[in-house]
């Protein structure tokens, strides 16, 4: 194939068989005929290339497979999309420094050590399923490690007294309250994530109607995930249902469980709390 530039500035390429792509009009033959020939030749060429490529992909050797995978991974890594890769069975687990334990041993064991730093995770569940308690425990564990945490409370329902009873060190918590609507809450969360230095950032959207959250395009959550990529911050969204579906983070779904009560007599009964039943839902 040879490239050329015409006097009128129209660029084209001469194929091996003498045909031209974007060839200039010739007076000797009709322009329509020439273009039709070119189109048919290109279609044939494409079919041959695709067939060869598919054969190459479908029947590669072991070495070729490894090369192809490495090439793909390097491409994805260059574009910061390597979190979408499925880990190979022999892949190394994340370092403990890259994990933020939630303070719940069972859940941490299921998560492989805790929430992944630098990724966006979610805690979902219905009301009274224990999602706020789980988020408060993760925050309490972070403050116990000496980290600063932040909570963006969209509907201003965070109760400092009961959170302190869970072990949360309030002086280490940056609380942004009553943001009013989801976009503002998201903007506040993005500001905190961009500032950096926080061990855990919780975005509490549990009391917002799901319709308002579904209005966000998927790219919004990808941008949020991109902000914290590679940082020391673990971001958690508390909501009714999965909205972000981040590739690198995890989703902890809490099933509704009956509340615990003490006592049987009417006048001697006490509410003892809810027992969260966390279920780790992988992003993929």
């Amino acid at each position, binding site marked *: 194939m040879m490239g050329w530039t015409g006097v009128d500035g129209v660029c084209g390429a001469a194929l091996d068989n003498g045909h031209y792509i974007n060839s200039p009009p010739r007076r000797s033959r009709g322009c329509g005929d020439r273009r039709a020939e070119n189109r048919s030749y290109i279609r044939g060429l494409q079919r041959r290339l695709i067939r060869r490529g598919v054969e190459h992909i479908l029947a590669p050797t072991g070495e070729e497979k490894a090369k192809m995978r490495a090439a793909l991974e390097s491409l994805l890594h260059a574009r910061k999309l390597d979190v979408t890769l499925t880990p190979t069975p022999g892949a190394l687990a994340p370092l403990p420094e890259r994990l933020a334990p939630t303070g719940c*041993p069972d859940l941490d064991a299921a998560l492989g050590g805790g929430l992944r730093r630098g990724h966006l995770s979610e805690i979902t569940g219905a009301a*009274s399923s224990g999602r706020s308690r789980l988020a408060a425990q993760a925050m309490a564990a972070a403050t116990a490690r*000496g980290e600063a945490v932040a909570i963006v409370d969209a509907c201003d329902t965070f*109760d400092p*007294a009961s959170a302190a009873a869970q072990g949360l060190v309030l002086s280490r918590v940056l609380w942004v309250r009553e943001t*009013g609507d989801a976009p503002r809450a998201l903007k506040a969360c993005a500001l*905190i994530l961009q500032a950096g230095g926080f061990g855990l950032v919780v975005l509490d959207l549990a009391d917002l109607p799901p319709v308002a959250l579904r209005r966000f395009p998927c790219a919004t959550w990808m941008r949020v995930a991109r902000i914290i990529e590679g940082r020391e911050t673990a971001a958690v969204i508390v909501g009714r249902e999965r909205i972000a579906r981040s590739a690198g983070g995890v989703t902890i779904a809490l099933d509704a469980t009956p509340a615990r009560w003490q006592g049987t007599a009417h006048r001697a*009964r006490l509410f003892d*709390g809810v027992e969260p039943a966390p279920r780790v839902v992988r992003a993929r």
Partner: protein
Amino acid sequence: MDKRGSVSPSYDDLTPGIPDALSSESVSQLALFLHEDLKRKASEGHAVLYACLCRSPTHQITKSPDPLLAVARDFSPRVMVVSDVEVLLDVSGLGRLIGEPPAVAAELGRALQKAGMGEVRVAIAPTQTAARLMARQLPLDCARGRPDYPITPLPNIFVTALQPLETLPPGMNHRDRARPYETFERWGIVTLGDLVALPAAALSSRLGRRGVALQRLARGLDPTPFVPDGETPRYIGRLELEWPLEALEPLSFVFARLLEPLSTALERADRGAIAVRLDLRLTDRQVHARVLPLPAPMRDPRVLRTLLLLDLESHPPSAAVDVVSIELDPAPARITQFSLLARALPSPETLSTLTARLSALVGASRVGSAALLDTHQPGAFEMTRFAPAPAPAPLAPSAPSALLAPSNGAGAHSADGAKGALLRRQRTPPAIRVSVEHGRPVYLAAARRGMPQGAVTQAAGPWRTSGGWWARPDPCRAGGRGPGHRAEDDACRAQGHGPGHRAEWNRDEWDVALTSGVVCRIFQDRVTDRWFLEGTYD
């Protein structure tokens, strides 16, 4: 402590082991102790060091400004002229730039030589009095070739202890002008060391406060704190604009132009800004003044500019800006020692910018850190500035928390709710309708969508709680509330209450579980008999 001054460390702090009463023989021991302590403090970099520049009384000042003062100001912004022949300067931070105190003294001597100052003594000591005492007993030509500085050579302190009483610096304490030298002479007290060795209690009983004050002077203690002269440089930038500016974006360039030289000047003086004062003269002849207190001394011009712009976003001027004036309040620069073991926290600059941005976004009363109040009022807290302190404990794997362990059953009803759940509290509890049978709630009907409602399957209560009846009626509750009550609402919100907050409360609380599985806390106001939803457990 004076606002501009600083309290000098006393020899009592430096030498905690020195008894009040010392024998004459122990003067040398005192000198040795002081010398070792000075060396240790200076090596640790914690000592406040003063340099005394003392010239000959016969020296005639022929230039203006005084070269001695000019040299002192070149070395430190904290300079105090104590007499016609003596100038004190704070050289505490010069150790990082020049080196040990002898090196600082040598550098001072060279600068004085360069300035044409001939007979000048240079002495460095941790107190003003000690520096002055040592400067007086040095030879006059110490700044020329034969420096004999008091920090390193031990004999200087011996010499100081052997100085006659008359060498005590005059004018250090105006109460002690009439000094009881005759009494001392009758007692056989001739030198400073002799006076130091006297027991303080006996001296006080015989000579009163004057005697004790003289003894403290002889020990090198300062009677007054170091107060720098009023000529401390002010960091002011002012720019008259060629045409008025209305938008913030062009103002940001003006701020950058003003702040960068100010920041450079602060850096040269090893200072940071603890507050930024912005005065904008407007076209309507008003002055839009803003003061930004900063959480820590900082001098990054970009951070300061961002803070000013964010503040102006929240508090815009009423007209176009004609003249911009920025003044930075200086403070000693912040020295940060990071730890390899503790996790890094956001820097004060980052936090200031972040808080300012968040305040501009959602309001200043809605950003901060919660602090619980010492009250039984449900949901009471106050918002404070978010300033996390570094963790003292090293980074360690988190211990298994007992939080998720099953409750031991001892959790009684409390204002914070059950320990096994977190209360999602409604700041302004919405009214609900509750059907009651046999004194117990059996059905909840919500007033609007999204609120829990349904038949009650479990209920625990009532728990009666009341308080605040002694307080005055809340002004924000009295009368009709219009849109002009925004400031009051913000004040209520900053204290953790909703806009319709009442100081007193009197109610019966219930924890109820609904058929939908939601567990919530409701209460009945005993004054109005109305039911409210306080929150849901989650």
